[in-house]
């Protein structure tokens, strides 16, 4: 059923985006917008614990309960412990549930081990102060008694010997006797990691130096890339420090639980299974969309704006099955981007086009801090507001982003023009609405009609294939 639009996630004050007061109108406020709940599309979607009537307390309880089954006896009172986080976690549902999990981990470690030297180290991607902004916004430095820090891939490094050779981590990530890997199961960049070792990925990204990240994106190929994470995690250097992992478990509807384990690969199998199952349906459904105007309206860089737990970069590649490992090259990855020549044509055959269903993108609110010109080169794009265009023009990662865009003074003008040139009234907003898609009525009706068929196809055909490709036997998965 179609419902009134759900309130989108509010703009966030950050050096990487325009000031919240400059975001004058949200996509959800446009006439004829409605909301389709994930649960209405897929009635078998896993139940969420957050958002819910008990607020963040359920996150605290779930974290405590899951950590009860984890052995922390290796941590002695005098040992320094680094709780490792990533900026991604704070982009989920506004960041509060992830922050609450990080607070609870500290409390549990302190209570059970007597350890007092507990530090929080939060990695980033390409916006080097983003984690510092989240640490401040959620009061985590106070909570960690002045021992919380954002770390960046250009910070001092440490060589890590792995079974494929030397890779590099960030020194400050590993400057403790023990590390606790505190992450989330959000599928997010499936175009990059292909849901292979998703739970291990931060060891090759958020916790890694530029050399390792460059290895991932330039040296290995689109389906071998995430091996750098496994290589680092399996190294004696990391194994000697690894205590346990604690994960905020996500679905397109919200937080479905917390998981914790001393065995990261056991947790990884659960993350792989749930990610394929829950996000697989939503992504396959988005791939069914035949035409749409897409509105970016979320406090993250262009590829990372969210709609029902799926990021725009996934929609840009939704014309292909991103989970299918038989398909080598998604329509958007950095490998794909590298394969386009100066004339804008692929250098080799078989490079899939960016999702042709995306007729126009309206950049109503999205940050810089991630190289995004590929999207404006491939999809007609309208940027709303001169201030936003100027912000992108100043961004060293987006110096050519607005070379291929139009500028509109306001969202209404942009939408009017987009409808006229695209010849469609189907609108999909990537605005972070919780557990739902904010869409135009026409697209809402279309999605409700397509969802049952998608659900059956994923359950009966695609999910078994995806799991087999990853060596996952679903009968052996025990969901916590």
């Amino acid at each position, binding site marked *: 059923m179609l419902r009134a639009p759900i309130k989108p996630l509010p703009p966030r004050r950050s050096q990487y985006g325009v000031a919240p007061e400059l975001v004058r109108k949200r996509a959800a406020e446009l006439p004829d917008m409605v909301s389709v709940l994930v649960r209405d599309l897929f009635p078998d979607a896993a139940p969420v614990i957050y958002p819910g009537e008990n607020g963040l307390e359920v996150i605290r309880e779930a974290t405590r309960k899951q950590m009860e089954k984890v052995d922390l006896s290796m941590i002695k009172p005098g040992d320094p412990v680094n709780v490792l986080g990533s900026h991604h976690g704070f982009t989920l549902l506004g960041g509060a549930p992830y922050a609450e999990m990080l607070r609870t981990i500290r409390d549990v470690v302190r209570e059970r081990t007597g350890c007092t030297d507990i530090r929080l180290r939060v990695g980033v991607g390409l916006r080097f102060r983003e984690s510092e902004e989240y640490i401040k916004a959620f009061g985590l430095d106070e909570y960690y008694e002045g021992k919380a820090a954002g770390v960046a891939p250009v910070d001092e*490094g440490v060589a890590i010997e792995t079974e494929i050779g030397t890779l590099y981590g960030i020194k400050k990530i590993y400057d403790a006797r023990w590390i606790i890997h505190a992450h989330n199961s959000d599928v997010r960049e499936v175009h990059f990691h292909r849901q292979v070792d998703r739970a291990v990925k931060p060891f090759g990204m958020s916790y890694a130096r530029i050399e390792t990240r460059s290895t991932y994106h330039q040296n290995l190929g689109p*389906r071998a890339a995430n091996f750098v994470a496994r290589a680092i995690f399996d190294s004696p250097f990391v194994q000697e420090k690894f205590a346990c992992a604690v994960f905020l478990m996500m679905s397109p509807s919200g937080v479905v639980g917390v998981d914790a384990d001393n065995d990261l690969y056991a947790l990884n199998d659960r993350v792989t299974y749930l990610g394929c199952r829950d996000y697989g349906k939503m992504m396959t459904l988005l791939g069914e969309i035949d035409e749409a105007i897409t509105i970016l309206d979320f406090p993250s860089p262009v590829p990372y704006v969210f709609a029902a737990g799926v990021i725009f970069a996934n929609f840009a590649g939704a014309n292909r099955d991103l989970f299918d490992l038989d398909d080598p090259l998604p329509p958007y990855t950095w490998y794909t981007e590298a394969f386009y020549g100066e004339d804008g044509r692929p250098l080799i055959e078989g490079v899939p086009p960016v999702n042709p269903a995306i007729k126009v993108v309206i950049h109503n609110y999205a940050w810089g801090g991630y190289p995004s010109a590929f999207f404006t080169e491939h999809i007609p794009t309208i940027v709303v507001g001169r201030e936003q265009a100027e912000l992108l023009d100043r961004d060293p*990662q987006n110096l050519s982003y607005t070379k291929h865009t139009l500028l509109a003074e306001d969202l209404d003008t942009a939408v009017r023009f987009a409808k006229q040139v695209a010849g469609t009234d189907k609108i999909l907003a990537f605005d972070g609405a919780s557990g739902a898609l904010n869409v135009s009525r026409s697209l809402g009706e279309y999605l409700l009609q397509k969802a049952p068929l998608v659900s059956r196809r994923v359950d009966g055909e695609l999910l078994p294939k995806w799991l087999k490709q990853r060596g996952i036997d679903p009968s052996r998965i025990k969901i916590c």
Partner: protein
Amino acid sequence: MRAVTLYAVVDVDKCKGCTRCERVCPVLAIKVENKKAVVDPENCLGCANCEQRCPEMAITMAHLEQSRVVQESLAGVDMAAVNDLCRKAHLHPKQIICYCTATRAGEVAAAVLKGAKSPEEISRRTGVRTGCKVECIQPVLRLLHAAGIAPERPAGGYQWYGLTPTVWDIPEEVKKKYAQRGFYFDEDRKLLDSLVETGERREINVARTD
């Protein structure tokens, strides 16, 4: 091509001379002298690494009155040598290696052939490593390595540490061990090889046309 529109400005009252900026600058355009950071405006490409990592928030980015463009010219360069160097590094000369500046492997190869001997020199000539400052260090190191150059790391710097493995280096036992876990090493190697081979075929066709 890298358009340079910004440059770093140091607030000397806030600067404590910690040298963090010096250690992360990809073009060595900021230096601590007499306990204060000093920017070399001729070489600063406005990447903002120093501004982003300064613990004292002592650096801001200002607009250049006149923007400039950094790009290595391919004029007069032996294109056969460019292609050969790219091939040795397992790169297609036309493939993008820096996603922020859309710089292609051939341009970086040309910079190497014209005398650049380090990632810092390559960045000053081409602008690579000055957008996100993260993702393009390996192809740069691969091209230098293919040219037989072993660059020296900036003393005490964090700019880069070293060359890392590629899909062409993965040991057979590793491939075998993880074959059932979704890692497609040989298939991806084939894909990347096909790109390089396309570049080679194009050269042959161009030569025949000539």
